[in-house]
């Protein structure tokens, strides 16, 4: 049985590590497609990447209901770690989650199952944090939209393979929609709902 003492640690310096991580996430969100690094180290529970752990420690608390995919929810250590370090409630209903953590992209539910916000409050939507294989190699994508000077290129190996096609719903839904943060180890790329993506093949 895992006790709290055996859980992986949080940030060494809670305040400055959270600040540094937030700036990476903010810069990623402000400049979609650009790859940002998470610098501060933290313990990573089973099935969670370094970037995901740092984001969790930076943004999650009792105000942010979390939805975990089946692979993450299975890990007792991961659930305990989240509960101990962030206090965020884990919910079964993905449509009320502030954040959704996905480690097995192949099993990503339909995006409509998450909160998309309302026309009056489009900010009340779920932010997907999706762990992917690579944000350096893989298929090429062309990104356009706010935050991008013309066109940004992204090479990524992402599951589900049709993620960016699925995100086309953001175009019709706007200002409602889903924001996505892709994490590969300590690298992250944000795809806010304003970003339009075209696949350029491999």
């Amino acid at each position, binding site marked *: 049985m895992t006790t709290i003492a055996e859980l992986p640690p949080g940030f060494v310096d809670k305040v400055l590590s959270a600040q540094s991580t937030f700036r990476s996430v*903010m810069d990623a969100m402000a400049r979609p497609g650009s790859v940002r690094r998470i610098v501060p180290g933290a313990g990573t529970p089973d099935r969670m990447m370094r970037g995901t752990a740092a984001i969790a420690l930076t943004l999650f608390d009792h105000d942010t209901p979390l939805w975990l995919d089946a692979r993450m929810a299975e890990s007792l250590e991961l659930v305990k770690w989240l509960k101990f370090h962030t206090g965020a409630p884990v919910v079964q209903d993905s449509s009320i989650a502030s954040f959704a953590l996905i480690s097995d992209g192949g099993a990503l539910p339909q995006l409509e199952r998450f909160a998309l916000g309302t026309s009056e409050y489009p900010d009340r939507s779920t932010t997907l944090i999706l762990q992917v294989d690579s944000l350096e190699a893989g298929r090429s994508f062309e990104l356009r939209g706010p*935050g991008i000077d013309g066109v940004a290129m992204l090479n990524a190996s992402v599951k589900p393979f049709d993620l960016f096609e699925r995100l086309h719903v953001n175009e019709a839904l706007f200002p409602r929609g889903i924001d996505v943060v892709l994490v590969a180890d300590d690298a992250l790329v944000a795809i806010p709902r304003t970003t339009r993506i075209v696949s350029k093949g491999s």
Partner: protein
Amino acid sequence: MNAPAYNFAYLDEQTKRMIRRAILKAIAIPGYQVPFASREMPMPYGWGTGGVQVTAAILGPADVLKVIDQGSDDTTNAISIRKFFAKTAGVATTTATEDATVIQTRHRIPETALSENQVLVYQVPIPEPLRFLEPRETETRRMHALAEYGLMHVKLYEDIARFGHIATAYAYPVKVNARYVMDPSPTPKFDNPKMDNCPALQLFGAGREKRIYAIPPYTKVVSLDFEDHPFEPYRFNAPCALCGAENSYLDEIVTDDKGSRMFVCSDTDYCEGRQAAGHHGSESAAPYKEKAQGGTNG
């Protein structure tokens, strides 16, 4: 321990997390006002409590902070906020626009072009551009939801009917990313074109009204206008009396009670930089400095 111990950059971590989440949503939905649980700050409303909370949430030890009030680094508001963060976060401060990584501003955008590694934080008094046209929050929220901005065009049209031109000179409404009409805070409309396609991230904080909104870098920002009455930035038709600049936004300074006046750059850093580079206007120095120079202190 006698001195009160504050967290880095004053705010507690729970508050920072809440503000940081609001900032991320604001960036994802350009121009949309995200509600946030604004805190009491150790300064009165109207002194930039919204801007200060945004700055506190993003600031790190490696940042270099610049604070301006109406373009000036040297006014009470700018100095006290700069000192506040020097004290609570220990960050380096500067008055030079190009050296700053975070610039908090009240009612101006610096003349020096901003770069990609800078964040501009605006202090906002009334974030809702439709508020003076429709006082009910439920109604303005629905108008934003439906992108129903006819009322704003009527207001600009009434300007034309009454004055012959769009007389709105500051807080001139803009449309962000072809969707949300947004209040750029009470900046002179001279500054509106600088918001368009700006390489820097622009964040807006309204403390009393509890709203955060944003313009991501390289985002289209259009000042509302009519085909036959296009948007025109306004500027006094004069060079700066101190640095001779022909393209900067000018303050009008009354110099005596006989109607004399001089025009000087509102952006003090820009003006001083130009003077140091050898540019001169019709006056040798600002009147208060001339007086000081004539005194015994030299």
